[in-house]
C-alpha cells in the first residue's frame, strides 16, 4: 500500500473544497451546470403564468399575450440590444484598461506597483451603483475635440461607469496569469537579452493569454447581468423600457410577471451559452496547460 502523505507536511486533514469563490469561475461553472431544458422550462412557466393567476387578474390571458407581442420588438431592438451594446463596449474599455493596470501590478517600479494596487482595491471594493452614479454625474454631456462638440450619450457614460470595476477585476486576472508563468521563463528570456517590455509582450503574455480567457468570459457574463443597473440612472435599456411599457399599459400588476419574466429569460438565454462555452474552454486549456 502506498501513502501519498509524508508524515510531517501534507496532512490529510482537509479535502479540496469544491467552491471556488466569486473571483474564480464560480458563476460560469454554476450557470453551465444547469440542464439545457432550464430555459424552455422557464419560458413555459412565464407563458403559463397569466393562466395560473387568471382568477386574480382583470386582464385575460389573451389580452396579456397581445400586450407582450406588441411590445416585444421594441423590448428586443431598443432594449436588450442596448444591454448587449453596453456590455460589449464595457468589456472593450475594461479589458484594455485592466490589461494596463494588471501589468502595472507587476511593474518593476515600486510606485507604479503601489498605485496600481490602490486603484484595483478602490474599484474592486466599491459598489457598482455608486461608481455608476459618480461617473454619470461627473462626465460632461458633451466633449470638445478639435473645435467641434461631440455629445456623450447616456449609455456611453454608463459604459465608463461599468468598466471601472471590470477594469479592476481584469487587472487581477492579468496579474494572476502573469505570475503563474514560471520565473525561469523570465530568466531564460533575460539571458537572451530581451528587454523587460519585450519579455512581457512577446513571451509572457502570449503564454498566459489562454489562461485568461475563461475568467475573462466569466466576468463578461457577470457584468452583462449587471447592465440593468443603468436603468436606475435613466439609461434606456431592457428594464427601463419594460417599466415604461407597463406604465403605458396602465401599470396593471398582472403585467409584472410577464414583463420581468421576459427580462429574466432573455438574460438567461444570452448568458447560458457563454457559461457553457467558458467551461468548455476552461477544460480544454486545463488539459493542455
Amino acid at each position, binding site marked *: 500500500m502506498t501513502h501519498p502523505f509524508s508524515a510531517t507536511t501534507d496532512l490529510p486533514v482537509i479535502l479540496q473544497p469544491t467552491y471556488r469563490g466569486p473571483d474564480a469561475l464560480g458563476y460560469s461553472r454554476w450557470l453551465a451546470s444547469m440542464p439545457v431544458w432550464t430555459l424552455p422550462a422557464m419560458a413555459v412557466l412565464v407563458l403559463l403564468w397569466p393562466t395560473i393567476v387568471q382568477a386574480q387578474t382583470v386582464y385575460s390571458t389573451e389580452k396579456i399575450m397581445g400586450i407582450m407581442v406588441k411590445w416585444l420588438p421594441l423590448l428586443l431592438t431598443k432594449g436588450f440590444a442596448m444591454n448587449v451594446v453596453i456590455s460589449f463596449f464595457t468589456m472593450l474599455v475594461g479589458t484594455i484598461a485592466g490589461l494596463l493596470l494588471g501589468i502595472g501590478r507587476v511593474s518593476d517600479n515600486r510606485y507604479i506597483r503601489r498605485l496600481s494596487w490602490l486603484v484595483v482595491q478602490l474599484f474592486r471594493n466599491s459598489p457598482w451603483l455608486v461608481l455608476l452614479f459618480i461617473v454619470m454625474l461627473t462626465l460632461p454631456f458633451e466633449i470638445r475635440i478639435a473645435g467641434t462638440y461631440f455629445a456623450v450619450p447616456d449609455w456611453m457614460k454608463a459604459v465608463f461607469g461599468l468598466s471601472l470595476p471590470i477594469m479592476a477585476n481584469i487587472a487581477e486576472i492579468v496579474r494572476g496569469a502573469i505570475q503563474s508563468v514560471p520565473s525561469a521563463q523570465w530568466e531564460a528570456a533575460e539571458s537572451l537579452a530581451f528587454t523587460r517590455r519585450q519579455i512581457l509582450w512577446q513571451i509572457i503574455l502570449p503564454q498566459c493569454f489562454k489562461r485568461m480567457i475563461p475568467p475573462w468570459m466569466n466576468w463578461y457574463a457577470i457584468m452583462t*447581468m449587471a447592465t440593468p443597473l443603468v436603468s436606475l440612472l435613466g439609461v434606456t435599456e431592457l428594464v427601463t423600457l419594460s417599466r415604461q411599457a407597463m406604465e403605458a399599459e396602465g401599470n396593471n400588476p398582472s403585467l409584472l410577471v410577464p414583463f420581468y419574466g421576459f427580462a429574466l429569460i432573455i438574460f438567461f438565454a444570452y448568458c447560458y451559452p457563454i457559461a457553457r462555452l467558458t467551461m468548455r474552454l476552461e477544460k480544454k486549456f486545463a488539459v493542455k496547460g
Partner: protein
Amino acid sequence: MIETVQDFFRTLAETHPKWNFIFFHDPSQWERVISGFYVTLQLSVVCVILSVVIGIIGAWAQGSPSRIIRWVVQGYIQFFRNTPPLIQLLFFYFALGQFTPTVTGPDGWTEQPIISNIGWAIISLSFFAGAFNVEIFRSGIEAVPNSTLEAAESLGFTRAQTYANVTFPLALRVSLPALNNNLINLVKTTTQAIAIAVPELLYEMVSIWNDYASAQNAAMTVLFFTYIALVGILAFGMNRWEARLHVPGFGKTS
C-alpha cells in the same frame, strides 16, 4: 469644536463653490447623511446575519435524506444565483408586495403594507447572499474528511456533538475566505435597494445633490470613501477572524 468644523466647511463652500460639503455645516443635511448611513448599516448587518443563518440552514438541508427538501434548496439556489439582484428586489417588492396584507398605520386611517420597502430589501438581499452562502458552507462541510468524523464517532461523540465540535469548526475555516468575499459583495449590493426607494446612504446622498447642485462633488467624494471604508472594515474584521482561527498545518501553508 463642531462650530470650528462647520465654519471651516462653510468658508470652503464660499471660496470653492463646487466643493460645498453642505452636510458638514448644515445640521439638517448632516442628519440626512447620518440616517442614510444608519439604514445602510442596518441593512448590511441584518442581511449579513440573516444570509449566514440561511446559509447554515440551507447547507444542513442539502444533506437531508429527503429528496424533496434537497430539490427545494437546489431550486432556491438556482433562482437566486442566476438572476440579477436588482430584478429580484423589484420582483419581491412589486410582485410579491401586492399580495401581502396591509395594516392600519399609526395615524389610524392610512393602510400600510405589513412589510415595508426596507423589509423587502432585507428579505431579498438576504436570500440573494444566502444562496451563495449555502454553497459555500456545503463545500466547507464536504471538505471535512470522513475519517476525522469517524475518529470522533469512535470516541463516543453523538452526531450533534461531532457536528458542533469537529465538523462545524473545520468547515468554518474552509468556508471563511469565500464567505468573506460574498459578504463584501452583499454590503456593496445593499446600494441597489435604492431601486425600491429605501432611504439608505446612496439614496440620501443622491437626494442631497439633487437638492443642492453645489454639493455634488462633495457628496460623491464622501459617498465613495464611506463605502470603501465600510467594505474595508468588514474585510479587515473577517481577515482578523480568519487569522485568529488559523491553525498550523491546516489549509493553505502559505
